[in-house]
């Protein structure tokens, strides 16, 4: 059985430095996979390669999403197909209202899927419902995208976007970084509310604590561009106890790690 997401022997580099050195990963619909790893191991690079950020060059390997060649698609087409990435550092867009932005995004996605564009009234009604899901303050709806948002508000806004756009694959790029425990719980509650049997998650994190709230089906440990260990949710706990140094020696070769992303 082929997965929703199939990654085979993926190699990627930035500015000529190879960061991902052969990733293999299959994600089935409804599964939650966590990727953990030390700083500079390539976690965020993997997220951004999947989302299609141009600065990351794929040098070898294949990625299919629901049977389609993901790497052939422009970033906006990946999004329209149902790949969503919650950014580690959400970008501010001054002067562009959050609602306006989301409506444009949703309608681009709907158009791609052959659905009618949603009108303003219908949209607002739907959005109100989604706001409750992530405990979003209505004030944030009318403010420019991420402008002047606190760290927690930005992350919550990402989950809110996710709730509105209803993607099939959600990639969370260190969504827990910079969050206090209350904000973390709110974000995790939002994610859990979106879990569904046809929606998969790829949760990238440095710390185990997020996985207390978003309980994964699988945990993969990334060291120096390769997975060195995969297992169930208990692997995260073991890692918490023993630290990354426990696994760092397991990388097949060990050149100086390039700090990227994380």
């Amino acid at each position, binding site marked *: 059985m082929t997965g929703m997401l199939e990654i085979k022997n993926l190699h990627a580099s930035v*500015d000529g430095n190879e960061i991902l050195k052969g990733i293999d990963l299959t994600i089935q619909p409804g599964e939650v996979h966590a990727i953990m790893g030390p700083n500079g191991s390539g976690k965020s690079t993997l997220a951004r390669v999947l*989302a*299609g*950020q*141009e*600065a990351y060059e794929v040098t070898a390997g294949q990625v299919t999403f629901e049977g389609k060649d993901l790497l052939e698609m*422009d*970033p*906006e087409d*990946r*999004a*329209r197909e149902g790949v*969503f*990435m919650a*950014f580690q550092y*959400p*970008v501010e*867009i*001054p*002067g*562009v209202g959050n609602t306006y*932005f*989301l409506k*444009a*995004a*949703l309608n*681009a*996605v709907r158009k*791609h899927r052959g659905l009618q564009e949603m009108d303003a009234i219908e949209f607002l009604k739907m959005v109100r419902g989604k706001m409750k899901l992530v405990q979003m303050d209505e004030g944030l709806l009318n403010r*420019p995208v991420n402008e002047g948002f606190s760290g927690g508000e930005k992350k919550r806004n990402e989950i809110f*976007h996710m709730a509105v*756009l209803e993607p099939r694959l959600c990639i969370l790029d260190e969504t827990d970084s910079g969050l206090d425990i209350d904000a973390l719980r709110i974000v995790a509650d939002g994610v859990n509310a979106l879990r569904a049997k046809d929606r998969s998650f790829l949760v990238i994190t440095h710390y185990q604590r997020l996985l207390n709230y978003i309980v994964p089906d699988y945990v993969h440990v990334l060291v120096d561009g390769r997975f060195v260990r995969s297992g169930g949710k208990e692997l995260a706990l073991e890692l918490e106890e023993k630290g990354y140094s426990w696994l760092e020696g397991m990388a097949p070769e060990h050149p100086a790690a390039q700090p990227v992303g994380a």
Partner: protein
Amino acid sequence: MQTTETSTIEQFAAQDYKFGFVTDVEQETFPPGLNEEVIARLSAKKGEPEWMLEWRLKAYRHWLTMEEPTWANVHYAPIDYQAISYYAAPKPKGSGPKSLEEVDPEILKTYEKLGIPLHERAILAGVAVDAVFDSVSVATTFKEKLAEAGIIFCSFSEAIRNHPELVQEYMGSVVPYSDNYFATLNSAVFSDGSFVYVPKGVRCPMELSTYFRINARNSGQFERTLIIADEGAYVSYLEGCTAPMRDENQLHAAVVELVARKDATIKYSTVQNWYPGDENGKGGIYNFVTKRGKCDGANAKISWTQVETGSAITWKYPSVILKGDHSVGEFYSVALTKGYQQADTGTKMIHIGKDTKSTIVSKGISAGHGQNTYRGSVRILKGADNARNFSQCDSMLIGDQCGAHTFPYIDVQNPTARMEHEATTSKIGEDQIFYCNQRGISTEDAVSMIVNGFCKEVFRELPMEFAVEAQKLLAVNLEGSVG
């Protein structure tokens, strides 16, 4: 990263000008050249009274003693003022148009193409349009309805004939004939333009609008606009501009004077989309314009809003003289330069009265090889107690071949003044575009969205329907900016 950013956004310059068509009408054109005889012929052609000719000649003689200014941050080959024709008009059929029905249908078609509501559409839109085609005012709609309210809205030529006392009182009262090289040239050779007078206590019931179009080859357009809002009056005025595509540069040297008396408000909005030249910088309009308003009484308010997307070179500084106590001056500007366009634009706020207040919001967007300069001057004179100014100058760069420059001049002679100045320069980031892409929004829509967001504070000052137009115009101008 740098190279991808450039390659994604660089195609900005290549975008077609959509108003470049030429209208085939019979033109009556003076041969190129400028001397006192040409001015006398021009004045006679328009059936002007003696005092008007005298004024023109006075200006012309002064102009001969002046030198073309070179301080602006723009570069162009010397202009040969003898190679320009100073009068071009559609030839009248019979004795000239008396109503819309008599206007050459070809001209009306031109305005149709431009989307100018001359006929019934105008009523629906509630816009009264005075359309200036090359040198003459072709048709003024809604004259009667406005006349009921006592408002005069007509061509400048008509005002000279029918309201000489108002023209003589106010013409040159804000921009004297000797003001500057281009304004003085305009004073000598201006061909037509719009005239508005709103009497005491009258709120003009509709937006007034002028549409300027340069059609003839080798002709300059020297229009002159004079708007007077008497005590307690209110008027909102919009001008729009386009021109056909021509390889040679054409000169547009206009003068706009605004007079707001006690408690009066004038809101003046411009959407300027003159032909900017081709992608190699050939052709295009030289837009050298003097715009100034005077708050001539307590609580008067003058607000300039401009969206400048066209012209090869723009040189203009819509200004306000804050003479009356508690008077208010505002300047909201969006200037987009792409291709090889150059813009040196900004404002002057001159605080004379007590408790006067001015606001400046300037948004410059540069793409391609465009060069965008903000030049502003805020002067607080000795008697201007408690004057306040807020200035904000933001520049946005798209690609790495363009430039943004800011020259704020501040002169404070009264210690009670409060001044605030903010300036930012940003680059449309690949990260912003990628963020939009990741939500399903195409790069082209993303650029348009980001730029419109950047300009929001200015667009919200425009009358609703023109704000929509301005957004569309920016989007059209941004087309092809991304690949």
